[in-house]
């Protein structure tokens, strides 16, 4: 009798303790995290006289040469922790977002993210306004075309890291006739074609093939293009949707023509001379990725010193040589003409105005339209 009584008592005590715990957790949940009000915290950086200490940078993999960071450390005395931990704009943003909304940056002082993500972060108040007086090289050397983007008209929050073109990468031998985005839908290449998993590049490219002006496209236009992509995916025309990993499909023969980025093509040719980047007959998509200083970032002084440093044409030339994307810094071509004339003549790295005349900037989507388009496209990605 007594034993079962006390056993019950024990169980009850446990139950009460657990219930109390649940209540405590529930209370803690109120008004914090993703369920609750929004606080935006945007402020201007406060600089010290001289850059010292430690600088943590998050960038994409293989997006810088091996010399720039050590050279910067030598030149300034700042120690740099350089992380290649960005593999997707959205994923990185989602991982950082809880920190950013609490006014922290996870110890990082520079992120490199795509224009549209930067636009979103400016709106959310997740970025620090830059002190441009500390970056004379940026002011002097930034490419004219990049100085006044619609999302940050005076470049108060962002400094371009690299730019590039999205077009076609084809295997000349196996897919000689692919010259336009429409050719990717040619049944001859069924199952041998990769599309990019980036909604803001893939869908506009397909709109170009459909004769839709990407800069005036309505939500209905986007949906029409997405429907076309979906039909091709379901029908087996598109092998898969990729990021940079199309490179391995091209080198191992799993794909013969893909949507791809200009810088990768230059690299891929080293592996396989049959691979080449082609400007689609309807034009390409132009994009850039920007350096930004998030809220709560420690040592903004060192961060701006780094931004300023990579805008020296001599320094930027090293980066260009390694990554092969379109540089946002003027004067690099002159440096490379002396050092490596072949690269200086490459129109994928220094595209002329006539080469990119049909190209369009990656469109910014907003509000409900953005949400609907992204949902529809993600449904295709998750086919």
């Amino acid at each position, binding site marked *: 009798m*007594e*034993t079962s009584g*006390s*056993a019950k008592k*024990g169980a009850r005590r*446990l139950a009460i303790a*657990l219930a109390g*715990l*649940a209540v405590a*957790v529930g209370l803690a*949940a109120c008004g914090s995290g*993703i*369920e*609750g*009000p*929004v606080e935006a915290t945007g402020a201007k950086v406060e600089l010290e006289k001289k850059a010292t200490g430690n600088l943590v940078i998050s960038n994409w993999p293989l997006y810088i040469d091996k010399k720039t960071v050590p050279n910067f450390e030598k030149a300034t005395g700042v120690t740099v922790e350089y992380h290649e931990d960005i593999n*997707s704009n*959205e*994923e990185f943003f*989602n*991982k950082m*977002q809880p920190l950013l*909304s609490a006014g922290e940056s996870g110890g990082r002082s520079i992120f490199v993210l795509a224009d549209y993500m930067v636009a979103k972060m400016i709106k*959310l108040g997740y970025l620090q306004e830059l002190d441009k007086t500390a970056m004379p090289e940026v002011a002097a050397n930034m490419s004219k075309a990049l100085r006044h983007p619609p999302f940050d008209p005076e470049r108060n929050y962002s400094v371009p890291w690299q730019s590039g073109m999205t077009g076609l990468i084809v295997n000349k031998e196996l897919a000689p006739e692919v010259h336009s985005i429409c050719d990717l839908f040619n049944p001859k290449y069924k*199952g041998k074609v990769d*599309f990019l998993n980036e909604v803001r590049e893939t869908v506009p490219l397909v709109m170009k093939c459909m004769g839709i002006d990407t800069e005036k496209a309505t939500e209905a236009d986007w949906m029409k293009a997405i429907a076309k992509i979906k039909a091709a*995916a*379901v029908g*087996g025309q*598109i*092998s*898969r*949707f990729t990021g940079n990993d199309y490179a391995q499909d091209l080198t*191992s*023969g*799993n794909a013969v023509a893909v949507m791809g980025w200009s810088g990768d093509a230059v690299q891929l040719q080293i592996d396989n001379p049959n691979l080449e980047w082609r400007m689609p007959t309807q034009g390409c998509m132009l994009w850039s990725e920007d350096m930004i200083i998030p809220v709560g970032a420690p040592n903004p002084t060192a961060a701006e010193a780094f931004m300023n440093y990579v805008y020296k044409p001599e320094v930027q030339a090293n980066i260009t040589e390694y990554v092969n994307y379109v540089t946002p810094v003027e004067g690099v071509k002159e440096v490379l003409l002396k050092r490596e004339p072949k690269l200086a003549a490459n129109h994928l790295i220094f595209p002329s105005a006539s080469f990119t005349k049909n190209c369009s900037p990656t469109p910014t989507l907003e*509000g*409900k339209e953005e949400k609907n388009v*992204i*949902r529809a496209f*993600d*449904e295709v*990605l*998750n*086919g």
Partner: protein
Amino acid sequence: MATALRRRSLAYLLLAPGTLWLVIFFVIPLYFMAKLSLDTEIPGTLHYHFTWAWSNYKEALQLYDTQFVRSFIYAGIATLLCLIIAYPLAYVIAFKAGRWRSLMLFAVVAPFFTTYLVRTLAWKTILSNESPITEIFHAIGLAPSGHILYTGFAVIAGITYNFLPFMVLPLYASLERIDVRVLEASKDLYASASSTFWKVTLPLSLPGVVAGTLLTFIPAVGDYVNAEFLGGANNRMIGNVIQSLYLTQSNYSAASALSFVLMAVIMIVVFIYIRFAGSEALMGQEAV
């Protein structure tokens, strides 16, 4: 009485840390996920508020019903293949391997010691268009299009490989427990080898079959690594969807809704299965 009481409070004391850990970090999170699955996003912000939005479930299922069904089909086929592949191996290890037994058991668990992702990437190499395996399959007509990678076949192959040890080990354990004298008795009574197998060995190994099937099927349904690396545009599974909804789209309510439905369906399947096949395999023996 006093010692009994002390023993009992000792039991709760021993139980407390683990129970608390599981309650706080497993049960309560499920509650939060349930709550999140009924939330609505406040437009233009990244924040949610609770609204009993059952429509989240409806929308998510309408959008992703294909992937849902596909996951169960892929996992079902892979589980069946695992059973067919694993049984002879487990049988041989249990009854015929002799001094090779340890070595064969080692071969079964060896894949566990190479990282899951690296293993799967190795399959990517093995199944790629230029590999001899693909050519062999093409030659014997199993890969008519000439490629295996980025097809449902590749995803199922990957899942089958990655979860095979989960099938072999319980099968082996239950076969090994069979008293060989029983099989000999069957033979002595003039049962043929096949009827000994079908009437004695197989029924006695059923607990292993049940345990193995569950241990393979459950992780296989929720898997997304194989579909990510080996699948193409039409082979994504529900795990991929949940992952991308959570981590890239931050559409938390839809993702939570899908996770919940997935868990519920698995539970139902498992309970039905256990109803038919007996529960000791999953629940383990009770203390004596």
